[in-house]
Every structure is written in structure tokens, then in C-alpha cells.
């Protein structure tokens, strides 16, 4: 990611003032696709107080926290694919681990992470997308931060509202989509 970060840091200046947001995204998307096959930029939302939330507790899932079953349960924050989700799980909001709930729109910008699947012992590259355009789902708050980085490294940050570039930029929930197996 070094070269991309550097590119971003040094090239966006001229673009920012003179280019529309959408066209900037398209431009950066092309740059990144060409450079490293990595989708542009993070997803997600910050959140902290799962235990304190009105809707912060997980629903009655088949799995028990801390077990192998939880790591296999898309309704559990411990599901292996969610290793850096910080927000509400779309699977508890009418969507699934890789589908936005009805009436929401996926964020066109996204970031990728790497999560380990204990079942096949492989690392997968996943894309975290936000689903946007409805108010906070409020259910299954999940805050995991493996390899998550602060906001000055946006391609690895989940504190930002990655619905920011959507026509309706309100955050509803988050998904995690398998892109492929990570290089070892």
C-alpha cells in the first residue's frame, strides 16, 4: 500500500479543488485499479458502546460467544469475515454479510481488509462496504479493528462514514464481501 498512499497524499491536491467529487472518485478508482487491484478506500463507522446500546446486543444467534460456531455465524460480530467491521451488521438489519438491506444503497467507495477464515485456514481479502440512505440500523453493533488504522490512513480506517460520497450519505449498516484469497 505504500506507493498508493504516497500517490494519494501527493496527487490529490490539484484534484481536490478543481474536480468534482464524483469525477475525483472515478479518477482515483482508475489509479488504484491500475496500481494494485485494490478497491478504493474504507468503509464503515465508528462505534463503541455495544453493551450500552439499546440495540447493541446481538440477536438470539445459534452461536455462543467465543466459540467456533460464532466465527461461522454471520449474525455474530465474531464471524470471521467481520475482522475490522465497526458499525451495525447488515445481516441483522434485513441484509446479509454481503447484501445491503432493502431500500439502502451500497457505498461506491470501500476499503479492503484481510481476515483469517479458521475453517479453511486461509486469509481472505474482503471489501468492507457501508449500506447507506437510511438511519442507523441500531442492531448488532460490532466493533472489531484488526489492522485498522487511524484516519490519516483512510484506506485502512473504519471511523469515517464511508457513505460520505453517496447521494444519501447517512450510514445504516456494514457488510464484508469476499474478494479473494490473500497472497501469503
Amino acid at each position: 500500500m505504500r506507493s498508493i498512499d504516497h500517490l494519494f497524499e501527493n496527487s490529490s491536491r490539484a484534484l481536490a479543488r478543481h474536480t468534482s467529487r464524483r469525477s475525483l472518485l472515478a479518477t482515483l478508482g482508475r489509479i488504484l485499479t491500475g496500481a494494485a487491484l485494490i478497491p478504493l478506500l474504507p468503509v464503515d463507522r465508528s462505534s463503541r458502546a455495544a453493551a450500552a446500546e439499546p440495540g447493541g446486543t446481538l440477536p438470539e444467534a445459534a452461536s455462543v460467544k467465543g466459540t467456533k460456531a460464532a466465527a461461522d455465524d454471520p449474525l455474530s460480530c465474531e464471524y470471521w469475515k467481520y475482522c475490522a467491521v465497526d458499525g451495525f451488521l447488515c445481516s441483522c438489519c434485513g441484509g446479509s454479510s454481503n447484501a445491503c438491506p432493502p431500500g439502502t444503497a451500497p457505498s461506491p467507495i470501500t476499503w479492503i481488509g484481510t481476515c483469517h477464515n479458521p475453517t479453511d485456514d486461509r486469509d481472505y481479502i474482503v471489501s468492507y462496504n457501508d449500506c447507506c440512505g437510511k438511519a442507523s440500523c441500531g442492531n448488532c453493533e460490532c466493533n472489531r479493528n484488526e489492522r485498522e488504522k487511524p484516519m490519516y490512513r483512510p484506506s485502512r480506517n473504519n471511523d469515517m462514514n464511508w457513505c460520505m460520497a453517496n447521494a444519501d450519505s447517512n450510514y445504516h449498516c456494514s457488510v464484508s464481501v469476499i474478494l479473494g484469497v490473500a497472497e501469503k
Partner: protein
Amino acid sequence: MNIFLMRAALLSLAASAPLLAAPPLPAEHLTVTTLPPNNPHRIYVLDDAFTNEIDARVHLFDGDTYRRLGQIDAGFNPGFNLSPDGKTTVVGTTYYSRGSRGTRTDVVEFTDNTTLSITHEIVLPPKRAMTLPTYFNVAYSADSHFLYVSYVTPAASFGVLDPAKNTVLEEIDTAGCVLVIPSGPNRVSSLCESGRLLTVTLDAEGHEASRALSDAFFDPDRDPVFVQGVPMTDGFAFVSFLGEVHEVDFSGAQPAFHQPWSLVSATEKGHWRPGGTQIGAIHRKSGKLFVPMHRGGEGSHKEGGTEIWVFDMKTRQRTARWPVKPHKLAPVLAVQVSQDEAPILFAATAHSDVAVFDARTGQLRHVEKQLGQTPWVLLNP
């Protein structure tokens, strides 16, 4: 999506050989869910979000799978209803240009219950009644040609809207009587302070053709009825604070009143009372009435039920008492029952949980924890 797939494919090719024989998980598509058509066990739960009241919402919940199906945002202090065909959720609400303040916009929004997208809206005059949601804040005519919206400024009136043409057709003053109780293709009744019903009949353009005031059917001083009418086959049942059931037949040109009957025995009267935010539900085919009941005195009419009482509407006898405390449930504020042959009773509690019971036996099947902050009203197709 294609670019994602391409990337995924390339990444997979680039990956080192897997250690295990099993192939790696395939790349996934990111999609947006749509819903199947309504089924009888789907419920629409209004969360008024009372501590964050500009952010009310309707949660869709499935009483078979116990899954949340989606969310319809509902603004500030909303009313809502389903269209007669169940395909549309209509929300009457208010927005402010700066969240909790600024320019007020009253609006009704129409949501497609398959996509959960808002298909259109009609802007209202800033008169929408801001009060507890019931069946009667926003209501369709039986043929769906009109939509009625209750106004209180505090002067009482209602709006007649054309949901197909997206227009407000008329405002009809109701002489202090409140809410919109729809009947037939063109009648709207409202509850009056005197215990009467005002019924306005509309012409084809939604203008007032005639109006009539009924006799008083309850005594608002001694034993007022809850405004939360319970749908029957041919009208609504209005339950009083002391537990009298006033069945009102709205199938004719004017409402007709059945002889009231009581949920409570002479010794229970005044000690056991109905209470909550949605104080009854009727399984129409079997004629079963479900009411959350509590022990309490004057002023306790908003306390939830520590028991759900079941009545046979034909014999007017209580057939069951289902205490909720053994299930570790808080008092029940709202009840709803599905209309199918294997009916489910939904009960929202004072702790914001929604319990799912077998409506025939009272057996608890599931407790959905924290279905919003303040789930106050439950509607179903």
C-alpha cells in the same frame, strides 16, 4: 460490481497454492436485498424512539424466522398505516430543516414494501396531528382512492389526499372531533369530546358531501374509551379505561353501536384494567380478542399488562389469562395478532422487547430483544 469480480479473480489467481485440498471460498457479489410479498406473520413495528424522537422508524420483523427484515425511517412523532393491499407503508411525519428545529415540513411518504424504498411523498400543510400512533392518524379509504390524515393545530380537522395523483384534495374541519376512522370508499369518522362520532361523507372529489353526529356511545367523564380502536371484521372495537368493549359497526352509512360488554367481572372492575399503547387485537376468524391487563386504579391506563387476557367475542367470555412475568417479560404495552389459521400473538413490552406467542395456546416462542427504543404500535397485513 464487475470490477470487483475482476479483481477477485485476479487476486485468486495470484494467490499462493492453498494448503488444503478444498478450494477457497469464491468471491462474493455485493447485492441489495428485496423482500418477498407480505406474509401473515410479518409485523411492522413502530419505534417512536422517544429519547431521540426525530429518528422514529418502522421495523419489519418476521414472526417465523425471528429475523429483522428491514427498516422504514419515520421522522418525528409519526403516524403510519398499511395500504389495504398491504403493498405500501404510508408514514405521516414531520421534518425540520435543522434536525430538531428550523423550517417544518409535514409530509406523507409512501414506501414500497418489497423494496423498502420511498416511491413518492405528498407535502402537507403543517397541521399534522403530533400524537401517539394509532390506526387513525393516517388511514386509507377501503378502495385506496383516498388517504386521510388527522390534523390538530390544536383545532381539529383532516386532510383528504389522492395517493395516486399525489395531491392534497381537501381539508375538512371536524368541529373538535379528532382522528380519521375510515369506512367504505368515502366515509371518515372522528371521536368527539362528548363521546359521539362525527361521520363525514365525501363526494368523488374528496369534498364534504354530508356530515352527521351520532349519539354518545360512551361516557367520556366516567369511563372514556381508548382511541386505539381494534379492527373487527365490520368495524372497530373501542375498549374503555374500565374495560367495557364498545363494538362499532362501520359497514353502513352511519356507525352502529352494539351493546357494550365488559372484560372484567363486577369484583374485578376498577382493579384490573386494560392499559398500554395498543390495548387490543382481534383474530377475526376465530373472534378471539387479546388485551394486556394490569392491576391498577385511576390514571393507570398507560401501564402495560402484566397478563394478556383472551376473550371469545361471541360468548363474551374470558377464555385464558397469560401472565407474562413467568417469561421474564416486562409489562406488555402493545399487542397484535396475525390473521391466519396458525395465528401468532406479538406483544411489545415496556423494556422494548417484542415477544412472539402461539396465539392459540399462549406458548412463548421467541423474545426479540430491543426492537428499537420504544416499540409502541404493531401493524400487520
